[in-house]
């Protein structure tokens, strides 16, 4: 009986420790990666954001344009002396499945203009994308050129490339886990097919990355 008790005691003790060590407490559901091999080496992958459903939150200075005015949280005045726009999205793969989260910081002031994207795919890691940044209210200007006027609903199609394909200034600057050691380029295309009378955008953002392992 003593042997039984000791065996059960050790089994219980060891079982809990083994569970603490071996169970995948931090595992995430992973969908197959929608990557393609490109002809000259490296791989390409497209990420998609659908508006308005994937827009989680935003905060910004009004000078940043329509996206800072509709559904965005106001920032303290100390942070809005220069145009600044912070946006958060759910992130989809090329097949339209939500695979992660994304944050976009855009600044339009003369000294620190630029765009930075943080893309997090929990099962794979994170990517940092940077670019010089589009002109202030670039999307607003493109919409107005297509007949949109603030305060009224609009339907049509406007395509605005915030980071153009083929340029070397929009880069994959850092990555973690599966994306560690990759460098490359990206492009960012906003396709807007409608604006509600409240200013809510409808359309997609496509982020196309081409990466390879750095030397």
């Amino acid at each position, binding site marked *: 009986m003593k042997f039984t008790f000791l065996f059960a005691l050790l089994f219980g003790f060891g079982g809990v420790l083994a569970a603490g060590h071996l169970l995948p407490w931090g595992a995430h559901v992973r969908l197959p990666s929608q990557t393609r091999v490109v002809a000259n080496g490296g791989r390409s992958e497209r990420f998609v954001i659908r508006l308005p459903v994937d827009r989680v939150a935003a905060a910004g200075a009004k000078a940043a344009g329509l996206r800072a005015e509709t559904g965005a949280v106001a920032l303290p005045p100390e*942070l809005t002396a220069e145009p600044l726009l912070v946006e958060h999205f759910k992130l989809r793969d090329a097949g339209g499945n939500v695979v992660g989260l994304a944050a976009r910081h855009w600044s339009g002031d003369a000294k620190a203009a630029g765009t930075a994207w943080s893309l997090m795919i929990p099962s794979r890691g994170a990517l940092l994308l940077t670019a010089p940044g589009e002109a202030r209210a670039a999307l607003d200007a493109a919409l107005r050129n297509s007949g949109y006027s603030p305060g009224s609903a609009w339907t049509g199609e406007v395509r605005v490339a915030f980071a153009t394909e083929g340029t070397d200034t929009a880069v994959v600057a850092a990555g973690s886990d599966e994306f560690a050691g990759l460098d490359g380029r990206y492009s960012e295309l906003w396709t807007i097919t409608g604006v509600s009378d409240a200013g809510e955008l409808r359309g997609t953002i496509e982020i196309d990355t081409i990466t390879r392992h750095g030397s």
Partner: protein
Amino acid sequence: MKYALVAVLGLLIGAAAGGAAIYYNPFTQPSPPSADAADRALHYGLPGEVLGFHLGDDVVPPGSPKRDDVFWEETIGRTALLSLVLEDAHDKPAAIASRLLAVSPRTDLLLSGVRVNDYWLLTIPGEGTLFLRAESNVWPFLKETLPVWYFGRHWKGPTDYRPTAGPGAGGTAVVVGATGRFAGLEGSAVEKYRITDLDPASRSAAATGEIDLRLASSRVAAGR
């Protein structure tokens, strides 16, 4: 029958001892504080300086008030999104941060604790944007907080934590300059926070926190 009862009793006592070993496990304690001085320290208060906070469905504390803004998709069920205003040493808003968080696959209750990948985009207007890649150990926070929230245990706080546990050298976060004057710079960062209040009813906490930044060159300090 008697053997079965003895076996169950032994199993339960053994399991309880295993649970206690995990709870008091020295391997999952936080790293000692770094003695290096920061180039710049930015601080925040929770919940006062939160612009937005969203949780994945799988990490909403059981019993907390129902939220409509949870991430229900299974691929992001164990994530969180937090946006914050950060203040400078004079308590003036100086930066805005977006934090994308996900439970880390490196979570190991025996050897490393409950790890969270914490990706920051931190913009300081007029200067630029930094990307921070941190791995935080939230086990010390959880093992003190959960008994207060769920079992009514008396809270001995306020309590200080230094959750940053990597992936950089010395248990620091890795900083990459993204835009503006920070472009091309690299460095490290450490987050510290103090829990100042715990509310069992809403399963919430109040805290003050600080992120200490060090860049490879002193350019970040020149703006002060």
